[in-house]
């Protein structure tokens, strides 16, 4: 088991390195850098000004070297201007060039500086992740129990009317992407045109003070899309368990249907959905980006859109590191959890 986890962690590290390099390379392509120079400096910069802007800020060097600096395995750049002033990657405000460290990258705990928000990347990501964690927590609270109940109810009597109805509901929710369900929910519950106005159409105020009125719609929008999928998996697994020999034995013994479902079937039926729930995280990440944009909730997904839209290199790298780690860690947990829940499977 230990070796298995160790190997998985190694693969994880390699994946993260590859992915961040791809992001780094794409954001550091010449047209992207020129756009960055123009948005950060001045829209009407001439080509020479752009070149010198990029040179004084250390952008005009090979991508591999810059990537090494970002990682913290190559000494940070240093630019001596003709007038004697010095600019360097590791130079923080107020510090002199002599005391500044030579290396400053991820390994030294420096995540860099966001050019859009003009703040440290680690700080931005910390705050935004907290906000998204709040959103995700409520999504899970709403989504997991309702999906499991839907699935178990549908799967315990396969082919019945309840099964048909609930399955149709879950197919419909999986067929509705967040930007469609969000728009419909806002239209019905938040617009002045319909007039119900039960909830708010934006969740900006939920960042400080979340309540039912301003937070329910975004939570529901994300939960709906994932719910159908988990419910379908639960249904399939429940339906399979209900045909097993031991259920028939229990039935022949005269155990009541309620006890069969609760005591015999449920535990075994929930193994498969567990993995699915964990594997839903990457999907939810997508939903988070859409919903946070739609409801203007300034969390992690919103930050991703801002960073990507403005070619904010270091923030984008930070965002990708975090999201890749989230994806890979949930995969690992789902694999390990599967082994623990299902004694028939072993990792070796």
């Amino acid at each position, binding site marked *: 088991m230990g070796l298995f986890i160790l190997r998985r962690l190694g693969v994880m590290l390699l994946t993260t390195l590859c992915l961040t390099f791809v992001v780094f390379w794409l954001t550091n392509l010449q047209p992207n850098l*020129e756009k960055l120079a123009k948005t950060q400096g001045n829209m009407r910069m001439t080509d020479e000004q752009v070149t010198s802007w990029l040179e004084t800020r250390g952008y005009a060097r090979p991508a591999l070297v810059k990537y090494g600096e970002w990682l913290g395995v190559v000494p940070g750049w240093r630019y001596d201007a003709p007038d004697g002033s010095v600019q360097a990657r590791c130079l923080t405000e107020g510090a002199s060039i002599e005391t500044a460290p030579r290396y400053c990258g991820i390994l030294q705990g420096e995540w860099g500086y966001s050019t859009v928000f003009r703040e440290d990347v680690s700080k931005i990501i910390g705050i935004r992740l907290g906000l998204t964690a709040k959103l995700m927590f409520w999504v899970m609270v709403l989504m997991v129990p309702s999906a499991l109940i839907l699935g178990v109810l549908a799967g315990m009597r396969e082919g019945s009317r309840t099964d048909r109805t609930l399955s149709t509901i879950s197919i419909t929710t999986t067929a509705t992407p967040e930007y*469609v369900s969000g*728009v419909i929910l806002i239209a019905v519950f938040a617009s002045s*045109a*319909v007039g119900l106005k039960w909830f708010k159409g934006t969740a900006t105020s939920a960042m400080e003070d979340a309540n039912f009125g301003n937070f329910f719609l975004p939570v529901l929008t994300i939960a709906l899309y994932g719910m159908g999928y988990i419910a379908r998996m639960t249904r399939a697994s429940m339906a399979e368990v209900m045909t097993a020999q031991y259920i028939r034995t229990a039935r022949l013994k005269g155990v009541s249907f309620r006890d069969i479902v609760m005591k015999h079937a449920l535990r075994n039926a929930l193994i498969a959905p567990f993995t699915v729930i964990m594997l839903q995280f990457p999907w939810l990440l*997508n939903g988070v980006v859409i919903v946070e944009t739609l409801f203007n909730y300034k969390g992690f997904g919103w930050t991703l859109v801002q960073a990507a839209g403005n070619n904010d290199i270091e923030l984008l790298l930070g965002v990708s590191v975090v999201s890749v780690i989230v*994806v890979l860690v949930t995969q690992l947990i789902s694999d390990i959890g599967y082994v623990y829940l299902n004694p028939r499977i072993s990792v070796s």
Partner: protein
Amino acid sequence: METLTWAEIIPRILWQFLPVWIALVGVFAVSILFKRRLGLYGKLFDSGIGMIGFALVMFWVFTGIFGAMDLIVTHDALAQASGMKNKVPGTPLRGAEEGEYAYYLLGGDNLARDVFSRTIKGAWIVVQIAPLATLFAFMVGITLGLPAGYYGGKLDTLLTFVANLVLAFPVILLFYLLVTPEIVATGIPSYMAAVLFVFPLIFAGVLLNSRYHTRPTLRTPLLIGVLFVMGWLYLSLVSDAGTPLQVLPGWLDLFDVPGGILVVFVAVVFVNSPTVFRIVRGLTLDIKTRDYVAAAQTRGEGPWYIMLWEILPNARGPLIVDFCLRIGYTTILLGTLGFFGLGMPPESPDWGSTINEGRKLLTVYLHPALPPAFALLSLVLGLNLLADGLREESLRD
């Protein structure tokens, strides 16, 4: 003229769809009549869910096709009419000329364009791109997944690693990185297109060669013919004036894909391929232990013959079902791209862009955002139901 009520709008909309109804009734009548002779497709008409799904899908397919032929649309999807900004459904067109449709059936959007016509035109974009992109993704996934599952070993490790790498990327981040004008200017999407679109050629070439290599008199002309036609199409598709990849001279170039569409296409294929790869690989791992594969190996068949003519046909059930589901997922991805304003030109009538424009005024005006939202919902729902029906019917025997 007065504004129409909903009781008048709905019959008018249904009337506009008349060609679609005729086509649908025709397809269903023929299919049900001959359903015993049509294999899996015919069996679809035994399941209620499958039929509903098929009807929804074909509704949008016909709508797309007839919409492109200007049969259903009432107005030009890009034209703006004065005084029609954000007008409610059924508003009469101010100063309508002779021969012009006198109403905006589903109202006007923020730029005074007809919402109804835009939704119809949006269907054509989806109907064109989604199935084709899914097909390309399947070509890539099958061509790489079969050998990965069949040979295993280092090749498998490498390809699986790359597939997981792409899958670990958040889709929207990938879109933002690939589908921006700056990246398009560097030509990276064109090079990716050149790589991804070569897979159908490889697939067809290997497929025919593995089958007919014992009969060179048939194989050689067949291969030359097929590869020549496909190669020409490939080069026409890949080479585009204005991109770094202009291999064909203009007079040989059969068609040009309009700007933005090719990039969107590449992005969607790229995102879908790794999942298809994983499915095909898993199926291959399962099927290669069967007796008929061992029999083929004993007969001395080549590995590619076994993969393409023994394993692949036996994996078709799950693949067909996944194909339907994946078209739906591709539709969602296209909508996502539009929703973030990526790739498509800003005035494009595709559903995602229209939803994105409509959502900004959603608390006041509902009508610009809701029709494309329901259109997308019903198409994806139809594809999901169709996949469900196919799965049920293919499991039955």
